[in-house]
C-alpha cells in the first residue's frame, strides 16, 4: 500500500515541475506537496557528525528537519530506513557534464593562421572568458544517472576548452526538473588551462610557456582595459574582469604543472583551485607549499599486462611503480594537510568512482576527509554551503541512502535524492523471493529453486532428478518463468506468470499447446547462501607502498642527496685558471664551495676521495641545451615571443638530466628553440637531479633571451603551407628586429611620458616590449642562433645601431668567416665541434671554426643542442685539439670556464678556484680523453652521480622492476583488469622541435 502511495507522489511530481507562475493549459493547477520522513537512519549530517536512529524530514526540494526528536506530520509519507546510512550527496566540481559542444575542427594540413577570427573580442581566440557554460546546456540524463549512481547530486559544469575557458555553472542532477530548477548558480567559476582551444586554428600559443605568457598578458590587459585606457570594445576582457569574483579553477594536470599554475596565480594575486592528475605525492613538499586547494581524480592505473616479457620491457619503472603508488596519493595529501576535493573526472568509466574511492580509503585516506572532499569542501568552494554539502535544515534535499557504511565494499548506494526527487538505484527493502518451492500445475509437481542476488535471480526447475531449462524474471510482485520442455529437439515452452505474496506465487500458466491454466508455488525453506559467499571472499590486502624517489623514476633517490665536505687527495687538478693544471694536488670542498686547493691538506672530518691517477675539473656547462623542458621548446606561434620564458617550464623529471650528470655536466643553459627571430627567454639551471624545478634554477644568473636567424625563422624547411608568416627571407629578418626594437623604444618613451606626468593616458603593459626594453637597457642578453656570415654581420650592425651588443652567437658555424668582426663587436661564439651538412645553411660549416674564432680573440664555447651529445661534451671539446691545434687547457675551457664567462656567471662556476661553487667532476683519466669516464659529478658540494654506485643502482632498478612485474602478473591471475604495456616517451628537443610534444626528429635542422 505504501508503494502505491509513493507511486502517486511520483506521478504528481512529474506533472508539477512547471514554475508556479507559468500558465497551465493542459489541466488544473495543483499545489499540494507532502512531507517525506526517512526514519531510523544513521545520518551523516556532515562529514564529521553522525546521528544514529535519526529522522530526516523533507518537503518539496528542501530539508525541513533532521534529528532524533522530530515531529513528523501526520500526512507524511514515511520510509523506514532502519539499518541504512544517509549521507549528503556528493558534489562534483570538475566536469563537462551537460555541455553542448560544437564539433572540433578536423585535423589536417592547414596554412597557419596568425590572426583572430573574432570581432569585438580579445586578439587571441584561445582566450574565451566570455564563454558561459550556462548558455550552452544540453542536460544529459544518461550521464546524470551514472553520476547519481555513484553518489553525486550537484555538479559544476564547464567547457574545458581554451587557455581561458570561460565560466562554469553549478546545477543539480535532477532529471525530474527543468534547468529552471536545476541551476543553483549560473556563473560560479572561471576556468584556465595550459592547452589551446580545439575550435580555432590560430597558431599562438603553441607551447605551455606560451599559454602561461598569454595568461599573464590577459591579466595586464584586463586591468588596463578596466581603467578605461582603450577606446575599443573587448568583450573578452570585459567578461574576464566580471569573472574576477568567481572561483578560479586551473586545469593543471601533472604535479609540476600544478606548481606552475600556482606560481602564475601568485603573480596576480589569484589563488587558483588546481585540478591535479593524481601524481601530487611525487612532489608533496612543493605541492603543500602552494597552499592551494586541489581537485584530485581517482584514476588509478590498471596493472600492465606484462605476460609478454619483450613487451613488458617497454614499460618504465616509473609507470610500474605508479601503479603501486597512485592509490596512496590521497592518503599522502591528507597526511600533509593539503586541502583537496575529489573528482570523478579522468575516469574511463564513472561507475568505477565508488570502488576507487573505497580503494583510496582502504589505502589510508581517512573516511571523514574523503567525505569532506566530496561534500563540505566543494560546497564551500563554490560558496553554496547554505544549499548543499551537508544535511541540515533549509538545505536542498540532496542526499544518498546507503545500505550501510559507504566505504564498506559490500554496501551499495540504494537511493540518491536530488532536490527532493527520489531516484531509486537499488530498493531499500527489496522483496526476497529466494527459496525452494513446491510448484504445481496441471496436477504435476515440480521443485522450483530460486537463487542469486536481488534483481538478478536464477531459477531451476526439476522433477525426479530431471532438470528443466528455466528463465526467471522478477519485477516485484510479478514473477515470470519460462520453462523449456525436456525434449531438447523441440522448441516448446511453458510460460508461468504470477504474483509473489508472502512466500507464495500464484498465477496463470500457458502450456506448450497454448492452453491456459493456473499454477502455484509454495515456499518450503530458506536457502542460505550468504555464509558460503562470505567465506569465499578474500580479504583485500593493501600492498606496501614503494618509496617515492626524487624524481619518481629510475635513478631517482629516496632522499634528495645532501651536501658533503669532501677532500680530493693527490689528484690532477684542471683549474681552468692561470694556475693551469696542478699535479698531485688536494682540493677541499665545503659548504657547497671550493674551500681549499693545495698539497697535503688535512682531512679534518671531510670525506676523503683518493684522486691518484685521476683528474678533477670544474663541471661542464652546456651553453645551449634543450633538456629538462616541459611541453614545448618553441613558441613558434608568432614571429616574436619575448614574452615566454623557459624558466616557467623547467622539467625536473627528465632522465636526460641524469644522463648528462653521467657525462660530467653540472649546469645547462636551457634555451628556447629557433622557430622565430625573437624567441623566448632562457633558464640557467644546475642539474640537481631530484630537486624541484625551482631549486634547479640559478635565480641570480644574468638573464638571457634566444634570438634566431636563417632557415628556421624564415621557415624554409616547414613545408609549403608555411609561406604566410613574415619573414620568409633573410632580408625580412632584419626588418622584424627593426620593427620590434623601434616599437620597444617608443614603448619606453610612452611610459616615461606617462610616469613623468606629461601624458595622462596609461600605456598598455606589454610583456614582450618590457623584455625588449631590458635588452636595450643592457639588462638582458641575447644568445642568437646563427649560421651564415651575412646574417651574423647584420645582427651585429643592427645591435650597434640600437646601442647594445649581442652577447653570444650560438651555432655560429660561419663565425670563422667574420671572426674579426665578432671580436670587434665583442660577441662570443658558442659552436658545435664538427656538425655540418644537415641543411643548406651549414654547407660551409667547418670543424676549425672554434679554433679560428678563438685565434681572433672571440670567446668560444662548445655546446650541444642535443641530449646525446651533451653527455660527451668533453669529447667534443677534444675535437678542437684535432681541428685547429687548440691547446688542451684551452679546449677544456671551451666547455667550462668559457661558457661560464659567456653566461656571465664565471664568478660562481666554470673553474676550480677558491670561493667558487663546488661544481666539480672527478674523471678516471684526462677529461679530454676518449677513454675517460666521469666518476663523480658534484654540484654545490652534493654528489649527484657516482659511477661506483651505478651497479648497485642498476640492480635495485632490476629488482624493483621484477617485483612489480610479479605483482602485476599476480593481479592478472586474480582476474583484475590490466592494460597493454606502454613505453614512456622520452623524446628530445632540438632547436627545430615544434609543438608541445617531444619528437625524435629525423633530421636535425638545428
Amino acid at each position, binding site marked *: 500500500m505504501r508503494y502505491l502511495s509513493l507511486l502517486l507522489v511520483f506521478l504528481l511530481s512529474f506533472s508539477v515541475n512547471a514554475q508556479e507562475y507559468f500558465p497551465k493549459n493542459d489541466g488544473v493547477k495543483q499545489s499540494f506537496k507532502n512531507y517525506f520522513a526517512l526514519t531510523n537512519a544513521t545520518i551523516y549530517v556532515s562529514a564529521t557528525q553522525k546521528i544514529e536512529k535519526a529522522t530526516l524530514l523533507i518537503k518539496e526540494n528542501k530539508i525541513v528537519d533532521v534529528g532524533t526528536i522530530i515531529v513528523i506530520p501526520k500526512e507524511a509519507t514515511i520510509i523506514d530506513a532502519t539499518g541504512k546510512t544517509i549521507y549528503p550527496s556528493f558534489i562534483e566540481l570538475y566536469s563537462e557534464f551537460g555541455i553542448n559542444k560544437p564539433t572540433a575542427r578536423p585535423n589536417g594540413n592547414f596554412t597557419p593562421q596568425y590572426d583572430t577570427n573574432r570581432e569585438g573580442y580579445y586578439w587571441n581566440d584561445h582566450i574565451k572568458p566570455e564563454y558561459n557554460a550556462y548558455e550552452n546546456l544540453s542536460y544529459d540524463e544518461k550521464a546524470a544517472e551514472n553520476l547519481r549512481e555513484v553518489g553525486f547530486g550537484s555538479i559544476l559544469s564547464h567547457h574545458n576548452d581554451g587557455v581561458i575557458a570561460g565560466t562554469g555553472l553549478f546545477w543539480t542532477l535532477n532529471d525530474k526538473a527543468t534547468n529552471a530548477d536545476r541551476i543553483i548558480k549560473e556563473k560560479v567559476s572561471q576556468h584556465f588551462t595550459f592547452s589551446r582551444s580545439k575550435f580555432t586554428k590560430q597558431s599562438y600559443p603553441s607551447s605551455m610557456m606560451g599559454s602561461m605568457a598569454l595568461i599573464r598578458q590577459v591579466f595586464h590587459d584586463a586591468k588596463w582595459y578596466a581603467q578605461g585606457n582603450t577606446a575599443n570594445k573587448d568583450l573578452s576582457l570585459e567578461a574576464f574582469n566580471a569573472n574576477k569574483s568567481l572561483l578560479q579553477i586551473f586545469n593543471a594536470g601533472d604535479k609540476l604543472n600544478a606548481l606552475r599554475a600556482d606560481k602564475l596565480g601568485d603573480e596576480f594575486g589569484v589563488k587558483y583551485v588546481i585540478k591535479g592528475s593524481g601524481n601530487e605525492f611525487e612532489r608533496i613538499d612543493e605541492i603543500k607549499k602552494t597552499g592551494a586547494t586541489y581537485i584530485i581524480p581517482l584514476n588509478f592505473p590498471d596493472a600492465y599486462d606484462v605476460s*609478454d616479457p*619483450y*613487451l613488458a*620491457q*617497454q614499460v*618504465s619503472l616509473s609507470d610500474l611503480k605508479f601503479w603501486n603508488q597512485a592509490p596512496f596519493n590521497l592518503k599522502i595529501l591528507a597526511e600533509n594537510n593539503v586541502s583537496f576535493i575529489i573528482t570523478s573526472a579522468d575516469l574511463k568509466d564513472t561507475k568505477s568512482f565508488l570502488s576507487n574511492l573505497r580503494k583510496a580509503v582502504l589505502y589510508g585516506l581517512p573516511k571523514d576527509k574523503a567525505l569532506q572532499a566530496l561534500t563540505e569542501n566543494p560546497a564551500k568552494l563554490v560558496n553554496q554551503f547554505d544549499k548543499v554539502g551537508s544535511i541540515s535544515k533549509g538545505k536542498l534535499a540532496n542526499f544518498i541512502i546507503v545500505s550501510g557504511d559507504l566505504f564498506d565494499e559490500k554496501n551499495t548506494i540504494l537511493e540518491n535524492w536530488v532536490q527532493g526527487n527520489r531516484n531509486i538505484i537499488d530498493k531499500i527493502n527489496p522483496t526476497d523471493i529466494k527459496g525452494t518451492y513446491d510448484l504445481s500445475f496441471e496436477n504435476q509437481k515440480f521443485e522450483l529453486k530460486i537463487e542469486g542476488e536481488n534483481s538478478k535471480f536464477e531459477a531451476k526447475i526439476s522433477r525426479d532428478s530431471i532438470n528443466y531449462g528455466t528463465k526467471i524474471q522478477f519485477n516485484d510482485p510479478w514473477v515470470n518463468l519460462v520453462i523449456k520442455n525436456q525434449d531438447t529437439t523441440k522448441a516448446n515452452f511453458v510460460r508461468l506468470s504470477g504474483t509473489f505474496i508472502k512466500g507464495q506465487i500464484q498465477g496463470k500458466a500457458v502450456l506448450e499447446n497454448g492452453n491456459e491454466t493456473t499454477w502455484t508455488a509454495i515456499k518450503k525453506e530458506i536457502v542460505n547462501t550468504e555464509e558460503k559467499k562470505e567465506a569465499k571472499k578474500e580479504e583485500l590486502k593493501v600492498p606496501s607502498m614503494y618509496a617515492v624517489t626524487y624524481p619518481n623514476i629510475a*635513478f631517482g633517490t629516496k632522499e634528495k642527496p645532501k651536501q658533503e665536505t669532501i677532500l680530493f687527495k693527490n689528484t690532477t687538478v684542471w683549474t681552468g685558471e692561470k694556475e693551469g693544471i696542478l699535479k698531485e694536488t688536494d682540493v677541499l670542498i665545503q659548504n657547497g664551495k671550493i674551500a681549499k686547493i693545495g698539497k697535503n691538506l688535512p682531512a679534518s672530518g671531510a670525506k676523503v676521495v683518493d684522486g691518484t691517477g685521476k683528474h678533477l675539473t670544474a663541471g661542464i656547462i652546456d651553453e645551449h641545451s634543450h633538456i629538462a623542458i616541459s611541453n614545448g621548446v618553441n613558441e613558434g606561434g608568432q614571429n616574436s615571443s619575448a614574452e615566454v620564458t623557459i624558466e616557467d617550464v623547467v622539467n625536473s623529471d627528465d*632522465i*636526460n638530466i*641524469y*644522463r648528462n650528470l*653521467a657525462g660530467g655536466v653540472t649546469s645547462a643553459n636551457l634555451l628556447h628553440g629557433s622557430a622565430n627571430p625573437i624567441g623566448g627567454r632562457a633558464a640557467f639551471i644546475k642539474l640537481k637531479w631530484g630537486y624541484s624545478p625551482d631549486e634547479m634554477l640559478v635565480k641570480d644568473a644574468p638573464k638571457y633571451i634566444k634570438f634566431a636567424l636563417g632557415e628556421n625563422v624564415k621557415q*624554409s*624547411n616547414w613545408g609549403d603551407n608555411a609561406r604566410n608568416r613574415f619573414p620568409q627571407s633573410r632580408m625580412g629578418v632584419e626588418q622584424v628586429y627593426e620593427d620590434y626594437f623601434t616599437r620597444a623604444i617608443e614603448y619606453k618613451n610612452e611610459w616615461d611620458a606617462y610616469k613623468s606626468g606629461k601624458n595622462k593616458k596609461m600605456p598598455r603593459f606589454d610583456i614582450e616590449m618590457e623584455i625588449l626594453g631590458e635588452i636595450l637597457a643592457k639588462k638582458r642578453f641575447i644568445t642568437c642562433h646563427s649560421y651564415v656570415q651575412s646574417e651574423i654581420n647584420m645582427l651585429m650592425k643592427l645591435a650597434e645601431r640600437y646601442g647594445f651588443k649581442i652577447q653570444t652567437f650560438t651555432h655560429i658555424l660561419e663565425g*670563422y668567416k667574420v*671572426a*674579426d668582426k665578432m671580436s670587434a663587436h665583442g660577441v662570443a661564439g658558442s659552436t658545435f665541434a*664538427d656538425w655540418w*651538412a*644537415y*641543411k*643548406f645553411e651549414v654547407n*660551409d660549416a*667547418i670543424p*676549425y671554426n672554434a679554433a*679560428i674564432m678563438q*685565434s*681572433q680573440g672571440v670567446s668560444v664555447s662548445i655546446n650541444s643542442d642535443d*641530449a*646525446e*651529445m651533451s*653527455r660527451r661534451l668533453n669529447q667534443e671539446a*677534444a*675535437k678542437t*685539439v*684535432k681541428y685547429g691545434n687548440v691547446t688542451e687547457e684551452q679546449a677544456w675551457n671551451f666547455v667550462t670556464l668559457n661558457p661560464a664567462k659567456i653566461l656571465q656567471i664565471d664568478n660562481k662556476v666554470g673553474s676550480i678556484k677558491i670561493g667558487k661553487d663546488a661544481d666539480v667532476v672527478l674523471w678516471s683519466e684526462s677529461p*679530454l*680523453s*676518449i*677513454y*675517460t*669516464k666521469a666518476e663523480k659529478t658534484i654540484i654545490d658540494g652534493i654528489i649527484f652521480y657516482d659511477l661506483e654506485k*651505478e651497479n648497485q643502482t*642498476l640492480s635495485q*632498478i632490476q629488482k624493483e622492476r621484477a617485483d612489480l612485474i610479479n605483482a602485476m602478473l599476480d593481479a592478472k591471475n586474480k582476474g583484475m583488469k590490466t592494460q597493454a*604495456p*606502454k*613505453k*614512456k*616517451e622520452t*623524446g*628530445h628537443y632540438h632547436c627545430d622541435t615544434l*609543438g*608541445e*610534444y*617531444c*619528437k625524435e*626528429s629525423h*633530421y*636535425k635542422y638545428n
Partner: protein
Amino acid sequence: MKKYIVLLFISLLGFAQQTPAPKQNKSILIIGAKAHLGNGEVIENSLISIIDGKIATIGDATLMKPAKHDIIIEAAGKHVYPGFIAPNSTLGLVEIDAVRASDDESEIGEFNPHVRSIIAYNTESVVTETTRPNGVLLAQITPRGGRISGTSSIVQLDAWNWEDAIIKENDGIHLNWPRSYSRTGWWAEPGGIEANKNYEPQIKTIQDYFDNAFAYLNTKNSKKDIPFEAMKGIQNGEKKLYIHVNGEKEIIDAVLFKKKNNIKNMVIVGGYYAFKVATLLKENNVAVLLKRVHDLPLLEDEDVNLPYKNAKLLVDAGVLVGLENAGDMERMQTRNLPFYAGTCAAWGLSKEQALQLITENTAKILGIDNQYGTLESGKSATLFISEGDPLEMKTNVISFAFIDGRQISLQSHHTELYERYKGKFEQQKK
C-alpha cells in the same frame, strides 16, 4: 730519403682538392712506425713495404732488412693502421639532409632488392672527403627504406666515378625486420608503444617473398622477374642478407628465419639488444654490425652507459662485431667512426679489440677480408699513418693515407676553407 718525403708533401699540396690519387707506380717503405694490424696484434717497430698497391711485406723492423724502395717514409713514433671501414653507410647518396633534391637514399615500394645503391653513389660528395682525414677509407653504400631497401655495394672513398670506387659490387641485400611493437599517435603527439598486431603477418609476408624468390630462382622461367633476379646469391651465400633489427624478440625471429631458409650469410645490423641473445648468434654464426655507439639508451630504466658497453658484451660472448653509424646526420658523423671505437675501449674493450670493430671484424662481416681490414702481407695497402692514437680525438692526426697503395688527398672542403680564412686573418695582421 728526406728528399722523397719532401717530394711527397709537394705532390700532396699540388693536388687540387678532391682529385682522386693516381695509381701508385712507386714502391713505398714505411719504417719505424708502431703497426696496429687490425687483428688485435701490434708490431712496435714495424717495417711495411708497399709494392703495386699491396702490402708486400710487413714485419718487425729489428728483424728485417729493407729492400730498396722508391719512397721511404720514416715513421718512428708514429702509428700505422688499416683503413677504417664504415658499413651500412649512405655516403654519396645524400648531400644535404634538408635538401630533398640532394637525397637519393630510398625508393618507394616495399620489396626493392633490385634497387642498387652503387649507381647513385656520388664519389664527389664533399661529405665523403671529410671522412678520409680521420682514417675512414672504405664504406658499404647502403640504400634505406621499405622492407627490403635494396642492394648495397662496397667502395673505397677516393674515386673518379662509382665504377672506379667499387671494391665489391652488390654485396648484399638489406632487409628491415618488422617490429613486434609499434608506436601510436603521430609525430607531434606520440602515443605509447603497443604490440604490433601485424608483426606475425609481416614476417609471413617476408617468408612468402623469399619462398617465391627462391622458387623463381630454382626453376627455369621464360619471363624475367627483375626483383627476384636480384635475390640470386642469397641462397648459396654469395650475397649476404643484412637484417636491420634491434629488438631482442625480433633478433631471435631473424635468426629463426635464417635457419628456416638455410641462409648462409646473415648479418644483424643495429642489434641494440643482440647482447641478450649473444649465445644464439654465436651458435648460428651470425655477426652484428652494432648500432651507433654515441647514442642514448633506448629505455629510461637502462644503464645510461649501455650504448658504450654494448660492443664489449657481444665481443665477450664471442660474437663477431663491427660498428655502424646509421641515424641522425649519419653521413657527416662518419668521420667520428674511430671515436665510437674509442668509446668502446673506454668501457671495457682493449684498444686493439676496439680497433678490430672498425677494421678486421667489419672486413670479415662484409666479406672483403681477403684484401682489406688488416695489415698483412698480400693484402691491399689501404692504410694510414697517424701521429697518435686515431681512436682518440686529440691524437687522430693523419699525415699519410693510402688506398690500394695510392696516396690519397687529405684535403677537404673543410681544410680548404680553414686555410683560406686562416690566410685572410694572417694577411689582415700584416
